[in-house]
């Protein structure tokens, strides 16, 4: 806690951003996000949109895995459900993005509840394996329900149309994805301060004790799956509108592993961890690409350095896990503490 930030009301104590400094930083971040598209190139805007989509999905997974302790490897499948929902609604009935995105979330939510049923009996690695089945089943449906999903060739999606404006480039798409990401993060942060969030944490810490305390495991475990899948569905819908093509191979198992890695690297059980993890996992390979492009090397540099880039990326993940198992969010908190207490040491 920041020194000198005394609270005089319960409302002040419960506020999400509880100090003037925090509120100032939020304002600075908001202004930076608004200004960013006007100064960034198409490349950075593309990456910003991609990061934002990943942040939504990672936040959802963090609610399930980080807060509730239910390990899932089905996040990509739920994204796929969302993506196909948006694609089908648009190509068949011309449903606009602002309507199809919440529907995508709800359809994924329903799938998530079904997939979450085994969580009542199994947990840990066993649950992870059970959720892989979701991916297998989703892939089967995507590739064999040809009349609806276009089969293995998938579906092509038109740009999202918001109030008559086609979001056909990264600049325009940014204005859809960033507010949705902000809303998703705000929703996650608030959720975790409610009875529901506390129930999730109680289940994670010891589910039997949670049940003894009066937390119905069935309801809350399925609720965690539902919320997580809703986030994934919306992220998948955005993914479809962003890349404008959806095929059964767009959402492989490795994508679920990507999100699991993102929340572990970022910090389990932390909204900020979801953001930092998604940013790290998405941007570090690109930053490494830029660093290597900057080196004064010959024409074959890309060929020889590409494997190096992959190895460095892997090594960075391992290093963070070894040296900071609590993730980037903990590094961030430590840096903040250092500033709060400066010139004293933590």
């Amino acid at each position: 806690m920041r020194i000198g930030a005394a609270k005089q009301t319960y409302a002040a104590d419960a506020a999400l951003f509880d100090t003037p400094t925090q509120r100032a930083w939020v304002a600075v971040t908001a202004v930076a996000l608004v200004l960013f598209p006007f100064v960034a190139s198409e490349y950075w805007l593309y990456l910003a949109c991609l990061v934002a989509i990943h942040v939504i999905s990672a936040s959802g997974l963090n609610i399930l895995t980080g807060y509730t302790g239910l390990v899932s490897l089905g996040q990509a499948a739920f994204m796929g459900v969302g993506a196909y929902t948006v694609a089908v609604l648009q190509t068949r009935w011309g449903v606009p993005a602002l309507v199809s995105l919440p529907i995508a979330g709800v359809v994924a939510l329903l799938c998530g509840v079904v997939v979450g049923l085994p969580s009542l009996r199994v947990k840990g690695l066993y649950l992870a394996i059970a959720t892989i089945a979701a991916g297998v089943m989703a892939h089967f449906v995507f590739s064999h329900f040809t009349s609806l999903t276009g089969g293995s060739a998938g579906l092509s999606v038109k740009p999202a149309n918001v109030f008559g404006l086609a979001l056909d480039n990264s600049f325009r798409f940014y204005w859809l994805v960033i507010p949705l990401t902000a809303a998703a993060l705000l929703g996650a942060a608030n959720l975790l301060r409610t009875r529901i969030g506390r129930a999730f944490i109680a289940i994670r810490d010891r589910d039997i004790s949670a049940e003894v305390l009066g937390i119905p495991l069935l309801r809350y475990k399925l609720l965690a799956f539902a919320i997580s899948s809703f986030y994934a569905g919306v992220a998948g819908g955005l993914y479809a509108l962003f890349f404008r093509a959806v095929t059964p191979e767009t959402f492989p198992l490795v994508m679920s592993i990507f999100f699991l890695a993102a929340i572990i690297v970022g910090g389990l059980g932390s909204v900020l961890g979801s953001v930092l993890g998604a940013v790290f996992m998405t941007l570090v390979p690109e930053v490494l690409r830029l660093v290597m492009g900057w080196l004064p090397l010959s024409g074959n540099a890309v060929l020889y350095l590409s494997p190096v880039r992959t190895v460095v990326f892997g090594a960075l993940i391992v290093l963070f896990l070894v040296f900071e198992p609590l993730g980037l969010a903990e590094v961030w908190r430590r840096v903040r503490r250092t500033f709060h207490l400066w010139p004293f040491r933590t």
Partner: protein
Amino acid sequence: MTTKRKFLTTAAAAAAASALPVAVRAQARPAAQEDIVLGASVPMTGVFAFAGIGIDAGIKDYLQILNEGGGIKGRKVRYVPEDTAYKVDQSMAAFKKITGQNKVNLYYADSTGFVKAVNPELDRMGSMIMTGASFAREISNAQRYPLQFMVGPDYSEMVGILLQYIAKAKPGAKVALVYSDTEFGKDPVEAARTDTRKLGLNLVQEIVTPPGSVDVSTEVIKLRRADPDYTIFHGYVSAPIPEFINQARAQGLKSQFMGTFWTMDNSTVMRMGANADGFMGVMPYRYYYDTEKAPMLERIRKMRPEYQSTAYMQGFLAAMLLTEAARRCLDAGNELNGKNLKTALSSIRNFDTGGIIGVPLSIKGNSIPIGRIYKADFKQQKMLPVSDWISLQ
């Protein structure tokens, strides 16, 4: 602060400090106005790296030859590749990066997924034409993919070429189709059904295998029951073809096994083992070691004395056709943009590839439906031609 914390803090600070100037500098780097830029999303890591590395070398070598000969109307062609790890989002990032930093007119794409995803952007930009590693039938549709083309036949046409060969070699033959349960695998299935009927062949069995399947014993039993004269594999690079062939031979199946382009590299076929002796397949380009008259192959062999893969040939020819379109566009006095480049590309008639393809080629649509049947000779460790060039045009 502990040592490890210091390490992490220093590492984070160093990363941030290095990333910023890099980003700024990368964006500020000007493109030489006189250069024509060929950008490429190439998989140099990941599952498709075996091909990406060859493609990269092929493009580089052709551009070296071209630039040493003075370029195109005095303008050099500059190659700007980025690794994609064969992931659509990274391919797209590479595309955005390359096109953001250079005035790109020619582009090489690495996968069907990326080609589909980038197509609307390509149409919107209207500044370049694109080819790549995908031979998906969908891309043959010039109305949906007006600024793209394939350096060879699409997958349906590849199977069509194989079926034409079969119909000629053994009229009325029994054919089986084994394909993976992927977009890649399923691509030519519909066309194969139609073509077998048209050619009077008998499609006796279709076997779909899950992606990455290893145990194929039940599928081999199905194949044995159907007892086809020819078995065409599609949608694989190697596995599970060797296992299929080994088990089929062990069960006494005499079927002639065949493959399509991505299976047909010399090293891939020779790794299948001795049971794959006589394995046949369709190849749109000559092999590195072909002995027929081919001045461009001789040039390649001088530049690179060691064997170069079929992916190399694909990259080489891709660069040749992309730059030929640019040459024709400039010769006609037109601005280099997507529409003009595609028009110039479509004007190619009876074009001599220097022997990379054994017949003069003409481009009429988005694909070049020409190929030849090659057969594996394990004694020589080579793929040898067993047919003339077959054109579906």
